[in-house]
């Protein structure tokens, strides 16, 4: 299997694993038990309990699926929209191409958080809307990257040859541009997955509380943010999970040194 194939398999396995974890938990993740708040690690609570006595491990597992969902939604949206706009801009040239690129630049310019916050203010915060909001706020870099790669591809000898033979732009797009750009774009997609979840926590931290009825790791970082010092493990477990997820995705799809287009890295960060 090629390196890319291995990486994508790892990604698929990871997301599947996260989704599966959300289907079964050892305890009811919603069971409140004020008598056992902040319980230490024990056989019945391998990660202890939170401030309402709920089993942390079960909540983490339930959150895994929602976290995966946020990641997938953001990724698909930013990747899909960005590629679409970038490739179209590269093929269209002229004023349309320019306008599309300007839009992408503007979207990049506005801090992700402001855009995402505006969207979620209007539609409420849940994993789905957060995914949509973050996706809509972050497609810009993908568009620029796709655009640059498209132009590069179009300038290749074999593509120029195809064009001179009369192959239409759509054909060129399908047969040459898309395959050659998708590769690189997927790389950057995966490496930013972890940041998505943390961005989500930042969104929530700034005042749009996450829905505690559908926990995901970002929402948990928000819900437990008052316990940074009093019950630090409540933040460390989700943080660790996010790190491991990000690390896995990062290593699995690491861009090879010297790969064309490694200039534009999509940004999903807020501090």
């Amino acid at each position: 299997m090629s390196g890319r194939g291995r990486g994508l398999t790892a990604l698929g396995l990871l997301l599947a694993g996260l989704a599966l974890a959300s289907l079964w938990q050892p305890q009811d993740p919603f069971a409140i038990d004020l008598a056992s708040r902040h319980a230490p690690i024990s056989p019945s609570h391998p990660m202890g309990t939170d401030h309402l006595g709920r089993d942390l491990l079960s909540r983490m597992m339930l959150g895994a699926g929602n976290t995966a969902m946020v990641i997938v939604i953001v990724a698909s949206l930013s990747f899909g929209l960005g590629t679409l706009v970038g490739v179209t801009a590269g093929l269209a040239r002229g004023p349309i191409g320019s306008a599309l690129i300007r839009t992408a630049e503007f979207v990049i310019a506005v801090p992700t958080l402001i855009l995402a916050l505006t969207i979620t203010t209007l539609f409420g915060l849940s994993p789905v809307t957060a995914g949509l909001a973050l996706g809509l706020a972050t497609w810009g870099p993908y568009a620029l990257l796709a655009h640059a790669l498209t132009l590069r591809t179009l300038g290749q000898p074999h593509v120029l040859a195809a064009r001179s033979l009369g192959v239409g732009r759509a054909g060129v797009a399908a047969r040459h541009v898309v395959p050659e750009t998708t590769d690189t774009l997927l790389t950057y997609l995966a490496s930013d997955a972890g940041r998505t979840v943390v961005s989500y926590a930042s969104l929530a931290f700034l005042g749009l509380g996450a829905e505690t009825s559908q926990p995901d790791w970002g929402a948990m970082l928000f819900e437990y943010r008052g316990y940074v010092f009093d019950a630090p493990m409540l933040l460390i477990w989700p943080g660790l999970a996010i790190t491991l997820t990000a690390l896995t995705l990062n290593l699995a799809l690491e861009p090879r040194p010297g790969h064309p287009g490694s200039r534009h890295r999509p940004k999903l960060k807020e501090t």
Partner: protein
Amino acid sequence: MRDGETRPGPVGWLIRSATLLAVVSVAAFAVLHAVPGDPVIIALSVQNLPVTPETVAALRAEWGLDRPLAAQYLHWLTGFLSGDWGVSFRTTRPILEEFGRRLPVSMALGFGGLALAVIVAVPLGFAAAARPGGLADRLARAVTVLTQAVPAFWLGLVAIWLFAVELGILQAFTGPLAERLVLPILIVALYSLGSLTRVYRAELLAAVETPMYRTARAKGLSRPEAIWRHCHRRGLFGLVAALTPEFGWVIGGTAVTEVVFGLPGISQFLVESVGARDYFVLQAYIVVIAVWMLAVFTVADLAGRLLDPRVSR
């Protein structure tokens, strides 16, 4: 610019910029009309004022919403250009004044952080490129992954605890502004460091594939020397390109840090305004960020040209 096209001169820049600003001004103006629900009712609600047919009609007239759209736009535009950006529902202060007071704080934070990040990213990226897989390389990757998984508010709180509480060497909240900015700037720098380092490194490594580099190596230069001589510029070029969007971030993206450290910046103000549906603030923000980014892209363009007059962007 696109391959094969010539760069526009100053006149072209002027035309493009004017067009951009015109479009942006329309977009900003349209905010009020794009809002779901009636903005007048929302404005009254949010300020805890009674929502009656009379108060709604009065506010609508005050905002000029009963006039034709074009007239409204002109009214808004002339007001805006003459410095009347409206008043914030929440703080009851003129929005221009809020921006004027808060923008410098966020700028100090953003610029300081980015400058620090660049200062560290260049040597770190260089060392990582000079020895791929080595210590610097792994350090850079570790920073990237770390800042992906650690929320800024957590790091901020822990940093305050460490330096202000446990060690007692900094006054995080009550010191002079410069002292209060130390930790936040460190945090902002940390969060930018990962990606900047990687970009710089990646560009250096891309340049390693070029014939110029290989020739230099063949002539007997060591890897670091060769990279320095021939790949450096390309690295900086990529760095400038990566830095450019970061600057937009200065106005709005530093919100979490500002909240944790209690800094009266524009980002925190914006976030609160979004939540409070303070639409006039959003309008002002859209225009400000557009003008700002225009300035940034222009400067970056010039810097790019200085670094490599031959390369089209």
